């Protein structure tokens, strides 16, 4: 369906763009919101990314690559929006919890998180991650891209991806434990 829609768009038929919007708006919005935590900002990021795709569709030589290219652009756009202060995330650093040390012998992160009483609590903790960490979480757990793919799309080393995910998990654990205190 992408291929046909993009062929239409390249011929100047804007109906092709509508097809692409219908196909990817949910995924794109979800990703943008997960990173920005702001519905209006997320909508704006997604709209802007579709407009940019509309303008640049001629540079896309392989229509099958559209989804990956587009979603990566959404993530980058959302990251920029989040970092630009459009809505500053409530960072852990700002709350002075960065230095929280976990004593050895504590339960594993899996047990701690999966044992959380409510999803809402975890969701609230997700919001405390930095934009970079949330982007890594989105690409890894929402888009199901593997570490290598995430690294390529964010143009960072795979080790950095793994570190961000690891840090994200660690921070979740720290926050869960701190709340339990």
């Amino acid at each position, binding site marked *: 369906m992408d291929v046909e829609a993009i062929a239409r768009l390249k011929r100047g*038929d*804007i109906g092709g763009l509508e097809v692409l919007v219908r196909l990817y708006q949910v995924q794109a919005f*979800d*990703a943008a*919101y997960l990173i920005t935590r702001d519905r209006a900002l997320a909508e704006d990021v997604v709209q802007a990314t579709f407009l940019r795709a509309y303008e640049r569709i*001629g540079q896309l030589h392989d229509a*099958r690559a559209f989804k990956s290219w587009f979603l990566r652009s959404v993530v*980058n756009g959302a990251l920029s929006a989040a970092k630009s202060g459009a809505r500053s995330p409530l960072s852990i650093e700002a709350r002075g919890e960065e230095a929280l040390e976990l004593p050895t012998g504590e339960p594993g992160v899996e047990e701690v998180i999966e044992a959380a009483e409510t999803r809402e609590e975890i969701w609230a903790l997700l919001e405390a991650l930095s934009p970079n960490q949330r982007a890594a979480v989105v690409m890894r757990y929402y888009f199901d891209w593997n570490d290598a793919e995430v690294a390529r799309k964010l143009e960072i080393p795979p080790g950095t991806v793994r570190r961000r995910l690891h840090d994200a998990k660690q921070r979740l654990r720290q926050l869960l434990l701190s709340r339990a205190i």
Partner: protein
Amino acid sequence: MSETFARRVVREYAEKNRPHRLDLWPAIYGRISLNREAPRSQTRQHPLSALFSSRLGMKLPALAGALTLVLVTLGMAGFLTLGQPRAASAAEVLARVEQAAMGGAAQDIRSFHGDYTFRSRHDANGAFFESQRETWFVTPDKYLSLGTMRDVDGREWSWFGGTDGKLHYNYRSDMAQLQLYEPLPASESGDNRSMMDPLQIYLLEPSDLQTVIEGARQKTRPVDPRSEPRPPYMYDAKLAGSDTILGRPTYVIELTLVPGASLQRTGAQIPERVKLWVDNQIYVVLRTEGWDAQGRVLESSGYTSFEINTSVDPAVFDFTAPSDAAIVDMRLADAEAIGKGWQQASQQAPFALFTVAEPSMTSLGLIPGRPIFYEARGTVSQMFQAEVVIKVPPSTWKVRGGKYNTGDSDSITEVRPRLVMVQGSPSSISTAALSGGKAVQIGNITGHMYKRDGLHILIFDRDGTRIMLSELVYPGFQSAGSLDEQSVEALMLKAAESLQSVK
């Protein structure tokens, strides 16, 4: 936290925060319609009526959606009332030139006849390259172009190419060779008008025009350097007024090279100042002029006659082979093998030892006009980009395979050698040139490596499919041409062996 649990939590979180009825299209379409006037082909195609007919029968949209719909309607109504495109900014005109060149203008053109000339100063000594062309086409499948060229050494030759809907052909007098192909394939949607587009002129001739316009567009739109490379130079663009060329109203765009932006390439072919005359209805570039820093004309091109949607004598497209031509029949004998080759290619891609770029078009979307098709008619199934980066030192930058694609560089240029792989049936890829080549061993298969127009080509057969690897020459400077002989051969053998090792 397990992977499964993490996915579930993230998705539930996304669903929780997603608007109940997410529909971004009205707002996006509104922004397109209101912020920039839609190209004519779009407004004709965009189903405003469908917007009403399909939605009025449904429940009323939310207030925001309704407001957007009203704005869209007002914007469209204003546009339709105007009838003609509004005066535009340089950025808008250039954007439409790009869009038209992608095939958008073809939807406005049912027939075309025109004469086109191109003249470019080749070097500082004042030698000029010249070409003329006369072209006809009638949609959907009739096309003919006749041309002459005079190179900087004064050598002249002629060529023609076209299709009558049943046969596609190319002829060059200097080679006295006529190549026959099946008609150009339809695009994926079954509409091949865009492939008959006279705007290939914009894409292919003069070769620098596309780069110039891209350079100008970098200044007129936001660029994400993570998703596209910047061109080696940029232009400031301004709308300088209007003019009439061959009776057609045009926008006049003036481009000025951004100081310091041409550091990566300062060959004689880069104009400091460019003037474009752009048809204000179909956005074809009707005329160009370019000057160097001293104000001397560097290149000029344009139509000397231009007619669209007028009657064309069908006899123009009657095909007769020149009596002196050696005929090379490239028509595919086995379409099924091509499809099979395509499937094999996608299976092999993950195993290739090179960075694999996806093919730019599908198996039925062959790109005409590139050097590779001198030899083959098959599926462009892979492009290989070597992992190595070749650093070309200053002043030695040179592209093999194109006598006039030469130039100088005052800085180090980095290129990644590229190979293209074409697969087809054994009869679809010529082996006529093999007599001059040499046998090379690829695992337990013997292949043939030879050179054509300065480019290495390697052919071998595998499982009934003929595979051809060739150095790739782009209209620009990216090619494998900067590698030495041994390196090119080694790269090609490595690529071939990686393919051979896949079972």
